[in-house]
C-alpha cells in the first residue's frame, strides 16, 4: 500500500491533547509518523495531501447507525451507508441489529463485515441482545464477540423484563461487552389505540396525535440503573442510546456520581429540535425517541456542555421516500444523520454555544471509540489506525439531501446551514471520500 502524507494541516487530537500544526504520515493502514510542518522523515515517495488551512483529526466514530443490510436494501446498503458516513467524516460506524434477519449470530456478523459488502469505512456490528430481539433467550455473547461484535442491544425493542435485562447485563459483563438500551417502556407508548407517534404534551394534544410520555424513557433508564447497581461488582456497562429527556439525563448523571458504568449518547436532532419542529405532520421529524419539549432539548445541550454526555451518535435511520410520504401516524420512525452530524455540531455546539472544537471532536470520535472498545481508533498517535478526517472548520455550506450519498433523504435538516466541510476521509490509509476542491 502506498504511503500518504498529509501536509500543512492543523492536527486536533483531543485524546492525545494535541492542537498544533502537524504533518502526518500514514503507512500500511496505520499512523507512521507525526512531525512539525515540513519535518516528516520517512515521507519519501508518499502521495501528498495538501491540508493547508484545514483541520486534521481522528476519523469520526458513530456508534448508532442503521445500515439496513441484510434485508432492507431499498432503504440503504452497507455500501451506500458507509459512503454517506465517509462523506460526513466518519471512519467507523457501529451497525444496529434490527435487520432482516436480525443480527443475532456470528454468521450474520461476519457476513456484514465481508469485503463483498463494499464498505468504504470500518463497520462494527452490534448484535441483538436476545434471540431475534424477542426479549427472551440470551444470545451467545462470547461467540458474537469473537466474530467482531462490539456491543449488544435490542434497539427499538427494549428489554422490559427485569430478569432478562439483569441476565443480559451480567452475561455481557462476563465477556466485556457493553449493553445498549433503547430506553422506552413500550407499555406507556403503545396503547390499545395504536402506537404513539410523537412526544406527549400540548403539541401532541393540539395535533390529535397519541403521545409518548417522557416517563416512558426515564423510568426504564432508572430501572436499568437499578439493575446495574445490583451488578456493581460485575462491572456491567449500560449505555443509554439516543437519550432525549431531562429526567433520564438526571438519572445518568446521578448514576455516574455513584460510580456506576453508565454512559449515554445524544443525537443531533435531540439537542437541536423540539416537538414544535413536527410542524404540520412532517414525517421527516418523526423518530423514536421523538423530538421532545424545549426544556428537554435545553437539558440535552446543557448535558453535552457539562460533560454528562459521552458521545454524539446519529441514529442514522434511512427510509425510502414513499415510506415517509404517508399519514404521520403510519410513517416509520427515523431520520438519516451521518452526513449532517459534523456540520451541525460545529455550527451549533462550537460556533453558537462556544464548545471548544477539540471537545466537539472528542464527542464524535475519541469518546465513542473508547466507549465500545474500538482500540486504536479515535486518536492519531503513531501506531493507531490511519483513520483521519480532514476538513475546513470555517467553511459554511447548505445541506441538500438530494445530493447526499445515502440511498434515503429522510431528514429534517434539508436546506440547513452547516459548518465544517469535509475534504478527505481516510479509512485505514485509504481515501474513502474526497470532495472536489
Amino acid at each position, binding site marked *: 500500500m502506498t504511503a500518504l502524507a498529509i501536509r500543512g494541516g492543523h492536527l486536533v487530537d483531543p485524546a492525545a491533547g494535541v492542537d498544533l500544526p502537524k504533518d502526518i504520515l500514514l503507512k500500511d493502514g496505520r499512523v507512521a509518523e507525526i512531525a512539525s510542518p515540513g519535518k516528516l522523515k520517512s515521507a519519501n515517495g508518499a502521495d501528498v495531501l495538501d491540508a493547508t488551512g484545514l483541520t486534521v483529526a481522528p476519523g469520526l466514530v458513530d456508534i448508532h447507525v442503521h445500515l439496513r443490510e441484510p434485508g432492507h436494501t431499498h432503504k440503504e446498503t452497507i455500501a451506500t451507508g458507509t459512503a454517506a458516513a465517509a462523506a460526513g467524516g466518519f471512519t467507523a460506524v457501529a451497525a444496529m441489529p434490527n435487520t432482516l434477519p436480525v443480527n443475532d449470530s456470528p454468521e450474520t456478523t461476519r457476513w456484514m463485515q465481508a469485503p463483498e459488502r463494499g464498505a468504504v469505512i470500518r463497520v462494527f456490528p452490534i448484535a441483538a441482545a436476545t434471540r431475534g430481539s424477542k426479549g427472551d433467550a440470551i444470545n451467545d455473547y462470547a461467540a458474537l464477540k469473537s466474530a467482531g461484535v462490539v456491543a449488544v442491544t435490542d434497539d427499538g425493542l427494549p428489554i422490559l423484563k427485569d430478569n432478562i435485562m439483569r441476565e443480559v447485563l451480567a452475561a455481557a459483563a462476563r465477556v466485556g461487552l457493553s449493553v445498549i438500551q433503547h430506553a422506552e417502556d413500550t407499555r406507556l407508548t403503545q*396503547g*390499545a*389505540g395504536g402506537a404513539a407517534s410523537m412526544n406527549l*404534551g*400540548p403539541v401532541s*394534544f*393540539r*395535533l*390529535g*396525535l397519541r403521545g409518548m410520555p417522557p416517563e416512558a424513557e426515564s423510568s426504564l433508564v432508572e430501572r436499568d440503573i437499578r439493575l446495574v447497581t445490583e451488578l456493581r461488582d460485575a462491572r456491567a456497562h449500560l449505555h443509554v442510546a439516543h437519550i432525549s429527556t431531562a429526567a433520564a439525563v438526571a438519572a445518568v448523571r446521578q448514576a455516574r456520581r455513584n460510580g456506576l458504568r453508565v454512559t449515554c449518547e445524544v443525537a443531533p436532532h435531540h439537542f*437541536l*429540535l*423540539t416537538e*414544535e*419542529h413536527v*410542524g*404540520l*405532520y412532517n414525517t421527516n421529524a418523526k423518530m423514536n425517541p421523538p423530538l421532545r419539549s*424545549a426544556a428537554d*432539548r*435545553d437539558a440535552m*445541550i*446543557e448535558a453535552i456542555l457539562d460533560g454528562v454526555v459521552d458521545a454524539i451518535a446519529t441514529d442514522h435511520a434511512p427510509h425510502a421516500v*414513499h415510506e415517509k*410520504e*404517508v*399519514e*404521520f*401516524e*403510519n410513517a416509520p420512525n427515523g431520520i438519516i444523520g451521518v452526513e449532517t452530524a459534523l456540520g451541525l455540531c460545529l455550527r*451549533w455546539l462550537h460556533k*453558537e*454555544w462556544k464548545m471548544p472544537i477539540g471537545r466537539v471532536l472528542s464527542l464524535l470520535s475519541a469518546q465513542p471509540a473508547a466507549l465500545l472498545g474500538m482500540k486504536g481508533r479515535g486518536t492519531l498517535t503513531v501506531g493507531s489506525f490511519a483513520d483521519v478526517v480532514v476538513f475546513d472548520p470555517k467553511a459554511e455550506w447548505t445541506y441538500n439531501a438530494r445530493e447526499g450519498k445515502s440511498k434515503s433523504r429522510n431528514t429534517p435538516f434539508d436546506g*440547513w446551514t452547516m459548518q465544517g466541510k469535509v475534504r478527505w476521509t481516510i479509512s485505514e490509509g485509504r481515501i474513502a471520500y474526497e470532495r472536489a476542491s
Partner: protein
Amino acid sequence: MNPTATPVRRQLHPPPVPASPFPYHPGSLLSVGDLSLDGISLILTRATALENQDPLTRDRILAKRRVALLFYESSTRTRTSFELAAKGLGADTTLVSSLSSSIEKGESLKDTGLTLRALGAEAIILRHNASGAAWLLEAETRLPVLNAGDGMHEHPTQALLDLRTILAHFDPSTKSCHPERAKRVEGPASQISPPHSIHQVTPETLAGVTVSIVGDILHSRVARSNMLLLPRLGARVLLCGPKELLPDLAALAGPGIAIERDFEAALRQSQAIIMLRIQAERLAGLQLDLEEYKARYQLTGQRLAAHAPEAVVLHPGPIIRGLEVTAGVADGPQSVILEQVRNGVAIRMAVVERALLAETAKGGRA
C-alpha cells in the same frame, strides 16, 4: 425577576421553528387557524347569501366544476352535507369511499389524490381516520383540500357551522343566547338566517360569552376546532369531562381555554353547550365506567333547567340518546341540533365556493 429562580446558565439561541408552508392553496380549508377573522366573516356572509339565493341561479355558480369527496370513514351527516352543498352550487361530485375503491387494495393517500387530480378533480373534500391526512393530501396534490375531519385533530366546517348556530341565537346587547331566537328549521330559508344575525366577526364579537364543550375532548376533532376558533372571537371555552377523556394539558392548546371538571359549575357559566358523543370505538383500554359517566356528565332536562335554563344546546352528531344527552334534551326547546345540520349545508356551500373561486376572489386567508 424572582431571585429564588434557578439562574439560566447561558442564553441558548437554538434553531428557530420554520414558518409553516400550509396551506399551499388559498382555497384550502385545513384548519380553522387558516382563516383570518375577515375570512371567517366572508364565509358567514356567503353562507347566508347562498342560502337565500334562488336555487336556479345558485347552481350556475360552480356549474360543471368537479369536486371529489374522498371518505376513509363512514359518515352520513358530513358527507351528505358536503354533497348537497357542492351540488347546490351546480358542481359535479364524485364519491370515493374506502369501501368501494382501490384504497381497499392498499393504494396510498398520495396516489389516490394524484389519481383524482388526473381525473379532473378541482378540489377534494377529505374525511380520514389519521390526524393530519388533509395536510398530506394538500402537499402532494396542491389542490384545494377541504378537511372534513382528520382523525382526532380538526373538523373546521363543523366549528364554523357551530359558530353560525351560536351567532343566530346571540344577542350582543345582553351577551346572551336565546334558544327561541331563529328557532325555525322548517319553512323558507330566509327565516333561518334572520337579518340581524351577525356576519362580521371581530375579536370582541363573543366577549363575555362562555361556551362549554363536554365529554370526550381527547378524541374529538370537533372539540379541537371549536376551542381554537371561538376564543379568537372573544369567547371563553370551558372544557368539561373526566381525566381519561380530558387531559390537563388540553388547557394549553390555545388562549381562552380552561378546564372545569364539575359539569354543573360549567353549565352555570355557559351561554352555549356543545355536547360530544362518547366514541365507544376509541375507548378500548380506557377504564371508563359508563354508568358513572352518565351520573356525572349526562345532560338531563333536570340539570339543564336547574343550571342553564337560557343556554343553547349543540351536538355535532351522531347522538347517542340516553348516553351523553337524554332524549328529552335532544328534542327539547333549548336544543339547536337540527339547526346545526341545516347550517352545515350553508357553511359548506360557502367553503366549497371559496375553494373553487379562491384564485379569483380576494381575501379569506390568514
